């Protein structure tokens, strides 16, 4: 082994990014590109009577104007829930929904053309929270969805009633979570070029899923898939905001065809927020039973998610929220009821930690509270409920490796939990929590029967190995990991590998960068390809001690340039239980994380300062420890935003958060020292034992934080974000309660 895997390796494209040479979609427009702009609805819910674009079309410099009339084919990432049009048809369902779009010679003309479009609508009642939308007489956003419910889920595994009966303490609490957004750095952008003579379309876009984009564009433009060419340039972050084809991408493609040319569509920060696909506003009602020894006997959980105006990934999100109650602890009975609700707001999506983050906060908070009531240590309670791998959960998920126990040991020791907890002084506290996440959804949303991942390795006269992959490098380091795996298997230096990713004309199809699937699935395909290439090289020159270059020369002499293909498919036994929705949550392996958070609470201003985080993440095997640390740190940062300061706010459906100033992503000033511990449980399914590293640590941050706040000031946050005014209100309430008790006792 050359040892390329397991080594701290700076990302291959780091130099371009640091020096500013990296080219993102918006950098690719040539001077002949037309400028596009979108007319967005000022109305939250309305029937479209007419959209008159004649004056806009007549404006000199305008090359194309399109409306919902130009695309009658709905799209959506789930084949069973395609109910969105790139431009609204007949009905408007949220403020900011695209209604018409213009391509013009310059931005000024495009803006002027938008002002010339005349819109006539009939407004209808709009709903901004799940309870209102679920009211009996509420107008339906989608006629086929009674009660404005996109999907109801009811599952019970084990006998919950008996479980609660055998508990020594049962607590039930309700938790509320604000909607959050990814606030990814690169603004949404698409460049589209239509070749009218050949009826072909080329698309460059800021996407995590070039293949799904390819399918959606071909579908909406009614082109054959071979007429479309999708290229993914550098992408500045995703976090699930770009895990499905989005309206602006299809709009740009439609405009390019309508204008018979090249069109650049760049969204503003406000428009990027309006495109949304963040984590839904969620209410979690959770009931847990615990024995006095800390064993959890039963769990009943009801989740209501306000999903926004269209389906998107909604069905998957509400299923994940229930499925991932499993596979972290050994819980004998779990009942889950989920409701995904439509409302007149931008659609939610598959945000980092998809479906698991809010429920995990509720769970870890309530476990902490139960532990407190029963006089048990939070670590001891987790240890009383550990799984033992290999295990199959009641809902049919497979756990082949399980490093949670070691994660607990590592952060307990590193934070000096036993020595320091309860001894930090007033206003300071320590809290802990655990989390987990899938390493790739084992059943892809588009079922084709094809392998889940394919990688090609190309070898030619220069002796370099070109790795061709459709996996979308979006800053997470996937290309570097693939290069490391290939170099490791071929026993050559990393520099011999060149990764070419994300071009549908050259790279094998890949489902994309979501559900933390790339390291495991594409990694296994990479190893498969590398093994095949190595075997070919060995067969060409079966001489002991012959060098790589000698083998290459021998192989090329017989075959010429060589391309080998490797693939990976998740075996059926890992594709989930037989119950309805059982595929969601299914995966080849789960990552595990535990963390301890130390806080200081200013009891006069309510401001919470995160002093330090100790986090241990079980990623199976760290192919690139440097990137694992970066991913874990990023998860902490994102969790901190959701826990403390980030939330979307709407005034009658208008976003009050749609700028980086208003939205409140934590800055480097708020970011504490984060001590990352990597735990390697060596999963039998992973490439060299690897599992995911990009999502699993996120969900344990918010509960570890609020558990630390509870330790510091005795207030258990049932609502995120836990902003300073909420802390002050809670402290005031505490003081009043104490005074009332004192008065009562005095009597």
């Amino acid at each position, binding site marked *: 082994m050359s040892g390329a895997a397991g080594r701290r390796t700076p990302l291959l494209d780091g130099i371009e990014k640091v020096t500013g040479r990296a080219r993102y979609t918006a950098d690719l427009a040539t001077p002949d590109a037309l400028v596009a702009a979108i007319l967005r609805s000022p109305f939250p819910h309305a029937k479209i009577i007419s959209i008159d674009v004649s004056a806009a079309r007549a404006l000199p410099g305008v090359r194309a104007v399109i409306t919902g009339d130009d695309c009658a084919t709905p799209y959506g990432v789930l084949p069973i829930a395609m109910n969105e049009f790139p431009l609204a048809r007949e009905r408007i369902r949220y403020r900011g929904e695209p209604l018409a779009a213009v391509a013009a010679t310059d931005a000024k003309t495009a803006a002027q053309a938008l002002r010339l479009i005349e819109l006539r609508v009939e407004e209808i009642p709009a709903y901004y929270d799940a309870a209102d939308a679920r009211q009996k007489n509420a107008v339906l956003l989608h006629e086929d969805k009674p009660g404005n419910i996109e999907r109801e889920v009811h599952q019970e595994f084990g006998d919950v009633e008996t479980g609660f009966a055998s508990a020594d303490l049962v607590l039930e609490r309700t938790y509320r979570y604000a909607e959050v957004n990814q606030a990814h750095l690169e603004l949404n952008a698409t460049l589209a070029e239509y070749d009218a003579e050949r009826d072909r379309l080329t698309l460059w876009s800021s996407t995590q899923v070039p293949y799904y984009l390819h399918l959606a564009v071909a579908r909406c433009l009614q082109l054959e898939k071979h007429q479309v060419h999708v290229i993914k340039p550098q992408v500045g972050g995703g976090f699930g905001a770009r895990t499905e084809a989005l309206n602006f991408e299809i709009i740009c493609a439609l405009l390019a065809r309508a204008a018979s040319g090249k069109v650049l569509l760049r969204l503003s920060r406000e428009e990027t927020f309006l495109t949304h696909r963040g984590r839904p506003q969620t209410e979690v009602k959770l009931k847990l039973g615990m024995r006095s020894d800390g064993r959890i006997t039963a769990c009943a959980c009801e989740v209501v998610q306000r999903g926004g105006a269209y389906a998107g990934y909604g069905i998957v999100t509400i299923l994940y929220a229930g499925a991932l109650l499993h596979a972290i602890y050994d819980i004998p009975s779990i009942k889950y009821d989920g409701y995904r609700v439509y409302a007149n707001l931008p659609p939610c999506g598959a945000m980092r930690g998809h479906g698991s983050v809010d429920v995990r906060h509720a769970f870890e908070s309530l476990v902490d509270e139960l532990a407190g009531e029963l006089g048990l240590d939070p670590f001891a309670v987790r240890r009383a409920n550990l799984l033992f791998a290999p295990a199959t959960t009641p809902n049919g998920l497979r756990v082949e490796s399980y490093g949670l126990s070691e994660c607990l040991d590592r952060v307990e020791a590193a934070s000096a939990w036993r020595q320091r907890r309860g001894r930090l002084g007033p206003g300071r506290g320590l809290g802990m929590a655990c989390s987990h996440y899938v390493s790739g959804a084992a059943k892809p949303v588009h079922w084709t029967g094809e392998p889940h991942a394919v990688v090609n390795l190309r070898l030619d006269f220069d002796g370099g190995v070109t790795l061709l992959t459709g996996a979308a490098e979006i800053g997470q380091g996937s290309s570097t990991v693939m290069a490391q795996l290939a170099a490791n298997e071929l026993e050559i230096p990393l520099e011999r590998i060149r990764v070419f990713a994300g071009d549908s004309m050259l790279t094998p199809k890949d489902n994309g960068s979501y559900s933390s699937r790339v390291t495991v699935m594409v990694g296994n395909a990479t190893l498969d390809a590398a093994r095949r290439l190595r075997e070919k090289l060995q067969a060409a020159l079966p001489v002991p001690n012959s060098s790589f270059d000698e083998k290459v020369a021998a192989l090329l002499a017989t075959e010429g340039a060589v391309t080998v293909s490797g693939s990976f498919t998740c075996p059926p036994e890992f594709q989930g239980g037989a119950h309805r929705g059982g595929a969601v949550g299914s995966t080849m392996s789960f990552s595990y994380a535990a963390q301890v958070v130390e806080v200081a609470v200013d009891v006069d201003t*309510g401001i919470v300062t995160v002093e330090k985080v100790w986090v241990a993440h079980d990623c199976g095997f760290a192919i690139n420890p440097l990137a694992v640390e970066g991913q874990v740190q990023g998860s902490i940062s994102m969790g901190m935003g959701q826990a403390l300061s980030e939330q979307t706010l709407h005034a009658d459906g208008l976003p009050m958060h749609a700028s980086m100033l208003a939205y409140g992503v934590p800055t480097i000033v708020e970011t504490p020292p984060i001590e990352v511990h990597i735990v390697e449980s060596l999963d039998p399914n992973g490439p060299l034992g690897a599992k995911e590293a990009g999502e699993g640590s996120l969900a344990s941050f918010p509960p570890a934080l609020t558990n630390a706040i509870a330790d510091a000031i005795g207030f258990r946050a049932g609502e995120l974000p836990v902003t300073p005014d909420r802390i002050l209100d809670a402290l005031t309430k505490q003081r009043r309660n104490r005074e009332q008790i004192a008065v009562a006792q005095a009597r």
Partner: protein
Amino acid sequence: MKAFSEFMVLEPRTIEEAIAAKTEVSGSRYIAGGTDLIANLRRGLDDPTLLIDVRHISRLQSMDFTAAGLTIGSAIVLAELARDKRLRRRYPALSAAAAAVAAPAHREAATVGGNLSLDTRCLYYNESAWWREANGFCLKHRGVTCHIAPGGTRCWAAYSGDLAPALLVYRAEVEIADESGTRRVPLSELFEDDGAAHLRLAPGGLVVSVRLPHDPWPAAYAKVRLRSAIDFPLVGVAVAMRVKNKRVRDLRVALTGVASRPVLVHDTNTFVGSVLSTAALDRLCDLVQKQISPMRTTAATPFYRRRVAAVIVRRLVSELAG
């Protein structure tokens, strides 16, 4: 973010030239660092044909410590204020206020004059043109209703410059130039309690400099905001105080972020001669809270801003009392 309309940029070398351009060209605006103005232009809150960049006027670029006090040109950048060791020693509240504005990159561009004449801010105003139109505009810009207090006739947008409260407790004067000449007035006279027209400047009026007295009282500045960088103050407080034999000799308190102009708290002289007991501090906090009226212009509640205003007052006074 909206594309700019076309505009010209003028770089005058003298105050007179600047004022002449401003009064002659309708729709012209002064600009220095642009950290406030450019963001607002990008949101379509104005559409100037001419930007007059005042940073090339040498009088606006000087900072002079003299026997009479300190004069700071309005085009001095905040980073320079924050870096200046003499300022930190003699006028620590001003130094702290400058260092607390936005983030380092903003402070390298943002100026004293720009921060003083910062536009007022509101949830319903600092939004895109599409947003404001969808919301029926507002009293401050193109509309007739203040969404903060729809029944009223005034705009409640909040002033949130950090320097003003510090300068107010130092009894700073501001030098203003306009067509009628140059005059020096107490800083408080620059401001009006009206979110839609909070600066009392004649057409062409330009803040030239601020002057601080040579014998400043000990003073301090602190602010509360959601994040510890970048964000505007939810409330900012400056306190200047002299204490003799544990009794208050002089006391001035000023706040930002809680009204449409910076608020210099009146009747603080009633504390002269008192010992700063807990009861006295309680009374002072009551006095402050009575004179501020934060409205729902930020995502944080007015109730929270009133509460922490008192917290900061108490902390700064205790700190200065030693």
